[in-house]
């Protein structure tokens, strides 16, 4: 059930727009945030909230690649495969992840901790190879950094190597970065 426990947030989202239908994407986000993916039940409920039919909601979910229609791992790894990252070794990045987790594109680890997908440009072309895990960016990746990030996440649920989605201009504090390089 999506509606019952999140009544207030739904009301807030609906209140943002003059037209109900405009709340579709934020409500789908809410569903994904709370359940990890957009379930059929959530789509039906959202359709009911917005005076849409379930097929209309389904159409929207499938148009955007960032909505998941199936349950995925707790950490959703999205590796950029566009040109800039490819030039600086995005393929290596995939093999490092595979070496560390035995995880291939489209898969989920048996402990449902990590899921891996390749995506198009994440607009961090100056700092490739890079990946996004849930809402955080991890940039200028090396095998050692990847290993550490994955270990951190499994152990603590977070990693301080997250560099945030907006890295330009680059942070002036180079110390954390140099420490990475020496690792």
């Amino acid at each position, binding site marked *: 059930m999506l509606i019952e426990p999140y009544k207030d947030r739904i009301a807030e989202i609906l209140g943002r727009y003059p037209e109900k239908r405009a709340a579709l994407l934020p409500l789908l986000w809410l569903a994904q945030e709370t359940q990890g993916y957009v379930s*059929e039940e959530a*789509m039906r409920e959202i*359709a*009911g909230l917005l*005076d*849409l*039919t*379930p*097929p*209309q909601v*389904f*159409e929207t979910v*499938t*148009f955007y690649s960032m909505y998941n*229609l199936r349950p995925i791992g707790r950490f959703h790894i999205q590796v950029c495969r566009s040109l800039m990252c490819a030039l600086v070794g995005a393929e290596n990045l995939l093999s490092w992840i595979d070496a560390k987790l035995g995880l291939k594109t489209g898969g989920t680890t048996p402990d449902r901790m990590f899921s891996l997908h390749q995506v198009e440009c994440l607009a961090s072309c100056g700092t490739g190879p890079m990946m996004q895990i849930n809402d955080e960016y991890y940039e200028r990746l090396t095998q050692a950094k990847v290993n550490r990030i994955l270990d951190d996440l499994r152990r603590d649920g977070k990693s301080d190597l997250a560099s945030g989605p907006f890295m330009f201009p680059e942070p002036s504090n180079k110390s954390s970065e140099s420490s990475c390089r020496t690792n």
Partner: protein
Amino acid sequence: MADMVNILVDGTPIAVEKGTLVIEAARRLGIMIPHFCYHPKIKPDANCRMCLVEVEKMPKLQTSCSTLVAEGMAVRTNTAVVEEAHKSVLEFILANHPLDCPICDQGGRCDLQDFSHRYTPTKSDFLDVKRVFQKEYFSPLIDKEMNRCVQCLRCVRYCDEVIDAKALAPIGRGSRTEISHFTSHQLDCEFCGGCVQICPVGAFTNRLSDYEFRPWMMKRADTVCGYCGDGCTITLQSREDELIEVISSFEKGRNSGDLCARGYFGYQFVNHPDRLTMPLVRQPDGRFEPTTWEDVLPLLAERFTQVKLAYGSEAVGGLITSRGTNEDLYVFQKFMRLAIGSNHLDSAARFGHVNAVEAMRRVQGTNRWTVSYEDIVNADCLLLIGTQITWTNPIAGLKVKEAVKKHGAKLLTIEAMQPSIETTSNIANLSTTHLTVEVGRHPAAVHGLLKAVFDEGVADNHLAATASGYVDRTRAAVSALPYPEGMDEATLRTIARTFAGSRRGVILIGQDLLQSPGGYEASVNLMDLLLLLGKLSEKGWGLAPLTEENNEQGAIEMGATADYFPGAASLDDAAARTRIASAWKESPPVGAGMRMLDMLEAARSGKLKAMLIVGENPARTLPASAKPAEALGRLEFLVVQELFLTETAKLAHVVLPASSYAEKSGSFTNSEGCVQKVRAGLEPLGGSRPDWEILSAVSVLMGYPLEYGDAAEILKEIRAVIPGYRVLGATPEPARVDRPAMDRYVGGGFAEDMASRYRATSNITQDSSYPWSLWVGQSLFHSGKLSTMAKGLLEIQKEGRLYMNPADLQRMQLAEGEMVTLTSVAGEARVPVGALGRIPRGILFFPESFKEAIAGLLTMTPDAVTGVPYHKQQRVAVHKT
């Protein structure tokens, strides 16, 4: 004209209305610009890029389906550049199209096939893997082959814009876009067949006719659908006297090519194995013995003559379905009136339509609408009262949807079902103002509307000056009434104000109003409403009662009811009697005719000794508590003409096999009064015969020869008997309000029953032993019993369920499909339950076509004025057992 635009298409000048699309302007010149995604019924989408043309002074090629004409525009559709563009687009589309034309049902009528022939692309420069979708089961009636899809989205747009069902959606992106329902669920929608019909390729096909045909093998006949009163033109496509499919061509008929589930998928009763093919005669041991026409016809003549001689003509009654052709109905009443000599005859129009006709005759002096479908589409305000239009009259419903969705008309609904978005469209979802009213309380809502007319001060001043007596007395009568209990006064006032303030308005009424107590009075009162607003005789305004069966209007006009001669003239109309006598060369009998219930009562009491029942099934239609079978069982001689061995036919002494609408010629008259041609698509099945032919043959043997060479000869006689009938064609001018009749009404006729018409209706009855209000109504997928013989419709809805609001279902802790016991004062029944959000809380809905299951529950009350048997509502209790 100022709003005309002159353009050149391939050098040929043409003037078209401003706002016309280039592709449409070219089409009018006979130039077909190839296209996939464009369709005149839906908004331009310009997604397929096939219709590119050169437009002078525009730098690039333009999509002609989305480019509006402009003054002086010069369009070229056949230059080398255009040709090259078309070829390239086609090459892209064909890159992914399978070469399965030999097994595709669309082969032979496929746009892609035609364009491929035209551009003959024999090679492609693409070197890539073809897109292949996994074949999935889609639905029992519609097959989906996504590999053939050209992604024009016509189906998706039609489903949304025209039908308002929104059951299809494009899933994914780019070349992998796939048309789908909800996730991997099989299609659950209103099955109008629109996606199949509008698909330019073979992505959607009709599963009922899968692999049965090639289009060029089929015999075609354009005829009119035999289900509801909308009068849709359909094309019967048959092969070796089997009906293979039913289609409707774009722009054809009153429906302009749109159909509903019944029209598109409901045709297979025609070739049903249970159809009667030989006359049956009951033997002394009670069995039916098949016989020949040669043997049965003299028997019929002899027995009818015997009854006449022994008991008099008055001892014979007749009942006919309003699904027959005008010719059947006309010959039936003539047979009854001349060969038998009795005015005791009635038709299924008695179940409700007579209420509306009687009201129209009384107030405006017409027996038909003063508006047409075009007036509905062009209205800027529509008021729907008790219609349930998207289920009962789906194509009239499309006219309402078109007015609202395309032209922005205001929609006011006083309906039994509340707004709720579900798998079938629901007119209340489009309402500007909606009032949910329990079936049976629509007449009270009409009182409320009239009260609101005065309270809002929107009554016509001119009328108040010229007919002050009428206005004052009506005002006094409605002002004495309270606003009906449980109905929001503000909503009623908004509806009255909005309707009064519109430019052109039509009131549509339907079964829920006309087949419930007070239906006649409410119809008259609605005409009061139009009168008081000063609109009754204005162009584009009027009352539009919708009919349940395809030819109820015809049944009335052919004189096939107890109250009227042909032309819907009263039995005491001397001029009509003279006219008919001169055409018939014999005078029709004098004396009032018995109506349906009177005849059954007379049969019960032994006054009526014989009956001729044509296609009607009172033993099933009337509730068990009215004991119709018992009454019919007392007859000395009962003849039934039928397609199937119905409950009534089983009681007969002689059963005669009748031809279905697909096997006969003649005409049907739809709700709006269009007399349309019915053409036989098949030979009569087995030994079956059209109803009129049977009656004609018996009449000859009885010495009253009603001989006709064919149906056209009958129509000729009908035209001679009914003044003005000659001019009625497929698109007649709507009838005009008859001034003298209206003046008579306003001048005093209104007063006769003023007190009973504006009597406060009883308030909501709260009966604690029967807390639920059960309402038996028509569902979208069925119509009467006939549709339950159609395989396709049974695939969608195979049984009757007791529908209730999901919240009620939850409160009762019931699961869908669970059995419950219903009890009423009349008896009990056990039925499965279902959930439907549009049913208001506390209300139960059961589809009429399956009402055998609840036959024991219902009671009946006849209308005091029009004799309509009301039997569609019942207070019941629901027991979870």
